[in-house]
């Protein structure tokens, strides 16, 4: 077995950058430089990992050389590897943006190392093959997000952070309880082994497994922000600096969705009724999220509610694993993966762009800004791309994501959820159009208080990452085949967990006679 450093690097690179940055805590400039290096290294490592997974299948490594299932396993399948790559992309984009966006005060208080720790935690969550370690990774990324959210101590931030912290801690407590019970039942924490053992338990005590799955569902449902557990998100995401919002908006809820996918495809055996249940949750999430957005007139709040709504589409894709048809299961999961990747890029970018818009227009309140289309045509274009993509305008990335989800939904005969998806899609168009007509088309109101013009280098630094993400959106839109192919293969891997289990190697290292034949779906 290879020593598997490539699987660890996406976690270690930013963590090391953070530690080094903290050693230089008096020198924010060094921290910023280390931030760029760390995020860049994470991206590079992620790409290398993805390539290796594509070439050789699931990559697993046993930390400390302790054999599975005893030591902690890190394992990268296609889903994990893709998520890590996207994490690197967003990390790098946000770090570059932060160079121009974040004030000296926050920089002096370790802003850049905090971002690095967040990225490390996110990568760890995507790669770990151990359920308790997943909890730890969640805590790492949560703690980083707590501090980032509260950093600066402005009034709005404080109240938002309190809600965010409290509800996420409740989620963590539920998750922890679930892990403890899982260990009690199976005597294992290794996800590959849990796959085998919970399958056996489900045969004799299906209700117990279902109840346990319920705990995990609520815990991850809070983090993923599904109906009706999403309330912390719109209460907090609009409060910190926009770079932080972008980071959280892009990545964090998707970690929750990832965990739901991972747990429901790998850890738990197929459970009766889960598909229907998730379809209902997905529909309500899409609809209620978008309703919140329709009611808002502040850019960041609108965008925050849309995160919720879009999570519904991802859950919808996941819900289709409850279908009887293998083709529908694969299509649904592939759609979910595609949607996640698309959404991370687009949503982070929308926050970045809205930050530039507020910098030029003087406010996030739509009533107080205007005339940006004439004042900054380049920004108008920069906004239209991610906004159009979010609204599903072809041929941008969001169109393909929506097409894939709706197609899978129709194939799975999930009529009501498809109807909800299309209805929410229309209201998403309305929201994006609202921002567009108000901030860009409408003449600037008399009450507008445009700030003094920003330096050119600053605007360039703000626009560059946004431009990069927009280019990705367009590239995926025009040439979606590679990404969809990746998503499809990732879905196939998820639906055949025996690959993952074999790569981790629990079946050979451990006598699991009782688990034989229970591997597949």
């Amino acid at each position: 077995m290879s020593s598997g450093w490539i699987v660890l690097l996406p976690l270690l690179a930013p963590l090391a950058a953070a530690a080094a940055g903290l050693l230089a805590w008096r020198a924010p400039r060094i921290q910023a430089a280390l931030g760029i290096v760390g995020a860049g290294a994470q991206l590079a490592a992620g790409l290398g990992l993805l390539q290796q997974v594509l070439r050789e299948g699931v990559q697993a490594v046993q930390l400390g050389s302790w054999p599975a299932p005893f030591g902690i396993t890190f394992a990268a399948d296609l889903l994990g590897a893709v998520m890590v790559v996207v994490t690197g992309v967003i990390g790098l984009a946000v770090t570059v943006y932060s160079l121009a966006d974040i004030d000296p005060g926050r920089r002096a208080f370790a802003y850049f190392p905090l971002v690095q720790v967040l990225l490390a935690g996110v990568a760890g969550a995507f790669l770990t093959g151990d359920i308790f370690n997943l909890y730890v990774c969640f805590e790492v990324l949560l703690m980083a997000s707590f501090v980032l959210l509260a950093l600066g101590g402005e009034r709005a931030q404080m109240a938002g952070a309190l809600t965010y912290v409290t509800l996420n801690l409740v989620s963590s407590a539920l998750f922890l309880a679930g892990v403890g019970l899982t260990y009690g039942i199976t005597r294992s924490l290794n996800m590959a082994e849990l796959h085998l053992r919970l399958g056996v338990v489900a045969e004799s005590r299906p209700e117990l497994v279902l109840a346990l799955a319920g705990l995990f569902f609520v815990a991850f449902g809070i983090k993923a922000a599904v109906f009706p557990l999403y309330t912390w998100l719109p209460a907090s995401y609009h409060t910190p600096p926009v770079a932080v919002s972008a980071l959280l908006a892009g990545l964090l809820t998707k970690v929750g969705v990832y965990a739901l996918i991972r747990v429901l495809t790998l850890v738990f055996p197929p459970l009766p009724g889960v598909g229907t249940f998730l379809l209902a949750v997905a529909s309500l999430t899409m609809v209620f999220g978008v309703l919140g957005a329709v009611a808002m007139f502040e850019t960041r709040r609108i965008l925050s509610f849309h995160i919720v709504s879009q999570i519904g589409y991802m859950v919808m894709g996941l819900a289709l694993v409850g279908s009887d048809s293998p083709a529908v299961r694969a299509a649904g999961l592939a759609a979910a993966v595609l949607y996640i990747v698309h959404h991370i890029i687009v949503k982070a970018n929308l926050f970045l762009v809205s930050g530039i818009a507020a910098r030029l227009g003087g406010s996030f309140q739509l009533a107080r800004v205007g005339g940006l289309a004439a004042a900054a045509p380049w920004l108008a274009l920069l906004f239209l791309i991610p906004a159009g993509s979010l609204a599903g305008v072809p041929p941008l990335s969001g169109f393909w994501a929506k097409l894939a989800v709706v197609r899978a939904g129709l194939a799975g005969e999930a009529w009501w959820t498809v109807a909800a998806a299309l209805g929410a899609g229309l209201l998403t168009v309305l929201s994006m159009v609202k921002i567009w007509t108000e901030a860009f088309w409408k003449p600037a109101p008399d009450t507008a208080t445009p700030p003094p013009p920003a330096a050119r280098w600053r605007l360039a630094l703000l626009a560059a990452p946004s431009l990069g993400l927009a280019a990705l959106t367009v590239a995926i839109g025009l040439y979606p085949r590679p990404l969809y192919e990746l998503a499809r293969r990732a879905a196939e891997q998820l639906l055949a967990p025996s690959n993952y289990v074999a790569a981790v190697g629990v079946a050979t290292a451990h006598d699991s006679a009782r688990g034989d034949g229970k591997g597949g779906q």
Partner: protein
Amino acid sequence: MELLLAVVVGGLYASGLYLMLRRSLVKLLLGLVLLGHAANLLIFSAGGVVRGEAPLVAPGEITPPPGAADPLPQALILTAIVIGFAVVSFAAVLARRVFEVTGTDDPAAMENGS
């Protein structure tokens, strides 16, 4: 004993959650702490309890005595206690700052404006 532990765990969850539902920052924190205790004890009981046989290797031996307690839940709980402590400390200071900034300790009274 398992029954007793179940009652304790249930009681801790109930009182912790009830405290969190009070509209008071301090009670929110107390509730969080109790929730952490509850989860730790839950893991402890789910892992199986053993009296008086700590998972230690006595000098001269190479394994702990047979029947020693399962060390893994203990390690998990230790990690969870420390993480919980760190998180609660941060939350406590945050709550204090929230009180300073908003002037109230009623979480429901601070509609986050802007």
